[in-house]
């Protein structure tokens, strides 16, 4: 089947196209140079914005944690119900929607690729089963490896190559995509009721520091040539004064930088940019973080933007979630995944009138606006931690319109407003920059070569929004802009129209990307003792641990060759 998207204003930052009127030709799910106009279906995008399909680098949409969140929150399902239609299944959930609804809602906003960033390796099977039930969007999952006993032992003994072999085996076994680290060392310490205070604190019983874990895994990442950098949730997340830890985390891998490719991705950076001694003296550390990021090229970030709404926080950072439960008094879940990681879930509401919440809202936007290069900071809400992903259109409006920001500023906590830097920031994102922050930059950071752009050979994931940049000024017409991003005029997934006028018209299955690192057989031999140690550490047999590719509904493997 062939398609032509005609007359739209195309924003394709990866190929340097900035709002030009170009026709996009699609054949058999790929962008091509030309198709036969008589045989092709034509989409008239006159007066509309055409972008590559949206990419979300960090969104908790599947897995044990998300599902436990669903169990914990019947009231979340009750407040948001979607009945079935001829095409779509029914579903429920505001902050943690059911799998099918998640896929539909992403597609309605023009998003076509989503990455679930915290998959406990032991529970990978469950995660992939849920991802298989998330329609339309392409997916990938990051296994949590920062607190795995094996990794800690290899890194303690400075066995980078052996650790690389293990990580390669783990990524292959769990059908993962990249290395995710959450509160390095802290989660293991939490197993003994403790936490680490900074990146040079020692992890109990392992005699290793978070710095060694981060550096070690960054080197492993480089050895394995994984497409994405190490994806890290910093120590001390969500604590006043933690911007120092975030800066130290970035600094500790400065010397590992090689070429243009970032070595580390600091995720939901808003939660790691708090200045002050306690909640009363909390201030934004966005200025310090952005100053550092502007001067260095070995880092990428995502926002973790807070939106004032009722949501559910969930991370593998057990001690953080325990603290949040103590702070809010809300119900909670805390879990431990054998020798690998922990997890916590606490429902949470961000209030406009709360000083802390309003400051957090401000920090996220300050980061996005003070970091000059949009290829370094991406739009996320750490769904559902800072807000559900359905609030992305609000954030796009705040980034693209100073008036929209001022309008919200007027309604937030007074003290937070007076301390916020936002009032003095005049910058407004252009469509070009917004396209980088929501698709091109994220795809580049993930190393997904066929995503996030509309060049020849790219996957035909296209989103079309009904907003005329020639006639309307996004800065003033931010409500129209927001509504356009809420309901894509068209979403095209692999060459098929899946959304028209904000309604799902076809449900297709997305692919699951996984990385298959090739490691020399001699090095794989170093894992010979793994089986024995596995027997000792795990409740699962070594043979039963890996997931076969046939277990995934539509897998797509990416081969990488390790340099060993």
């Amino acid at each position, binding site marked *: 089947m062939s398609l032509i998207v005609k007359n739209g204003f195309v924003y394709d930052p990866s190929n340097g196209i900035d709002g030009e009127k170009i026709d996009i030709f699609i054949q058999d799910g790929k962008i091509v140079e030309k198709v036969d106009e008589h045989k092709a279906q034509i989409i008239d995008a006159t007066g509309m914005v055409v972008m590559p399909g949206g990419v979300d680098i960090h969104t908790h949409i599947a897995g044990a944690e998300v599902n436990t969140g669903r169990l*914990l*929150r*019947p*009231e*979340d399902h*009750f407040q948001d119900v979607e009945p079935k239609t001829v095409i779509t299944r029914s579903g429920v959930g505001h902050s943690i929607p059911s799998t099918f609804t998640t896929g539909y809602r992403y597609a309605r906003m023009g998003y076509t690729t989503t990455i679930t960033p915290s998959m406990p390796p032991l529970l990978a099977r469950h995660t992939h089963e849920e991802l298989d039930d998330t329609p339309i969007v392409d997916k990938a999952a990051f296994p949590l490896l920062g607190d795995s006993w094996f990794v800690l032992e290899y890194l303690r003994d400075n066995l980078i190559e052996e650790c690389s072999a293990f990580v390669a085996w783990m990524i292959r076994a769990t059908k993962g995509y990249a290395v995710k680290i959450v509160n390095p060392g802290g989660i293991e310490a939490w197993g003994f009721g403790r936490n680490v205070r900074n990146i040079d604190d020692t992890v109990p019983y392992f005699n290793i520091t978070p710095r060694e874990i981060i550096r070690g895994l960054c080197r492993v990442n480089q050895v394995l040539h994984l497409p994405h950098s190490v994806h890290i949730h910093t120590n001390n997340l969500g604590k006043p004064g933690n911007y120092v830890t975030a800066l130290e985390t970035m600094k500790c891998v400065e010397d590992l930088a090689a070429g243009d490719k970032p070595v580390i991705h600091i995720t939901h950076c808003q939660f790691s940019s708090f200045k002050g001694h306690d909640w009363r003296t909390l201030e934004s550390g966005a200025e310090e973080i952005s100053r550092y990021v502007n001067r260095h090229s070995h880092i990428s970030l995502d926002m973790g933007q807070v939106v004032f709404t009722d949501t559910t926080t969930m991370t593998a950072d057990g001690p953080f979630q325990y603290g949040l439960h103590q702070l809010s008094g*809300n*119900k909670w879940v805390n879990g431990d995944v054998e020798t690998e990681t922990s997890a916590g879930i606490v429902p949470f509401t961000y209030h406009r009138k709360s000083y802390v919440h309003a400051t957090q809202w401000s920090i996220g936007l300050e980061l996005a606006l003070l970091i000059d290069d949009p290829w370094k900071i991406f739009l996320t809400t750490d769904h559902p931690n800072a807000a559900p992903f359905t609030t992305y259109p609000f954030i796009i409006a705040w980034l693209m319109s100073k008036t929209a920001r001022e309008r919200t500023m007027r309604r937030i906590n007074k003290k937070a407003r007076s301390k916020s830097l936002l009032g003095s920031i005049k910058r407004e994102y252009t469509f070009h920059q917004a396209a980088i922050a929501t698709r091109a930059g994220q795809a580049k950071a993930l190393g997904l070569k066929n995503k996030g752009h509309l060049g020849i050979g790219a996957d035909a994931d296209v989103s079309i929004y009904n907003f005329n940049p020639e006639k309307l000024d996004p800065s003033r017409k931010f409500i129209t802009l927001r509504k356009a991003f809420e309901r894509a005029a068209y979403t095209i997934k692999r060459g098929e129209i899946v959304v028209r006028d904000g309604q799902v018209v076809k449900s297709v299955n997305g692919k699951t990307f996984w990385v298959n690192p090739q490691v020399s057989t001699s090095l794989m031999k170093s894992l010979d003792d793994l089986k024995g140690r596995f027997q000792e550490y795990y409740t699962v047999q070594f043979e039963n641990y890996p997931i076969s590719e046939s277990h995934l509904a539509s897998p797509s493997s990416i081969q990488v060759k390790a340099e060993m």
Partner: protein
Amino acid sequence: MFILRSRYNFTVPVEAECITCDVFSVKSLEEIRSLLVWEGNRQRRLDELFEVEYTGKDKDDETAMKMSGDLSKVRRIGNGMTHGKIIIEANAGSNLGANMTGGSLLVYGNAGSWLGSSMRGGKIEVMGNAGDYVAAPYRGSTEGMRRGEIIIHGDVGNESGNFMRGGFIKIGGNASQFLGIHMRDGTILVNGNSDRRVGAEMVNGRIIVCGHVSEILPTFAIDDLRPSVKIDSERINGPFYRFVGDLAEEGEGKLFISKPSNPHLGFYEQYL
């Protein structure tokens, strides 16, 4: 006044959240008759289930409604209502007056469970008994009743006043277990007896029991002996033992338990 009479005895639940004065006041009689409700898994017009009549405007110009027949399976009457008056001359089903913010509901029979669920204002009066979870929010939610008044002349079931955050509940008869569980604020008055575990996990608010309570949770501490309790302008004469708790939640909720009706709690006086 609108008169609604059920046409037959319902055997499956009827979800009728459209039966509110807010909806009726802005629609013509024909539009009201064609409103859609679910009977079990089938969608039906309102006039397939009820005879709907209109007798003209009332004196005070308030939208009023009188319902009769078999309503014990009809759920969500008066859902989210902001004004007007509904008189139910029968037993009403569950979730009666859920989320209502104003207006009044009067039930001459019994009411089902989840009466006044997450209520935000207005008044509900039930002449008979009410089921479980009076004023409680939906499962999992902590946003219970905030304002308004619920008066039940009969008995109530378990977990009444769950997560209550304000307002007033008056129970003429007896209350079952876990009265005022997770209560955050507001007042509950029981003229009759209450089953065990009154005020479990309460953080704040007041529960007054004039009748018998078999035992007080060990996480409540006696605090005082009060001659009477004042609720707005009304004074309830005691004397009452006053307990503070639930200490397991570091709560400061107050339990007022009648001294004359509970001689077996006399041993607490030694701790005063």
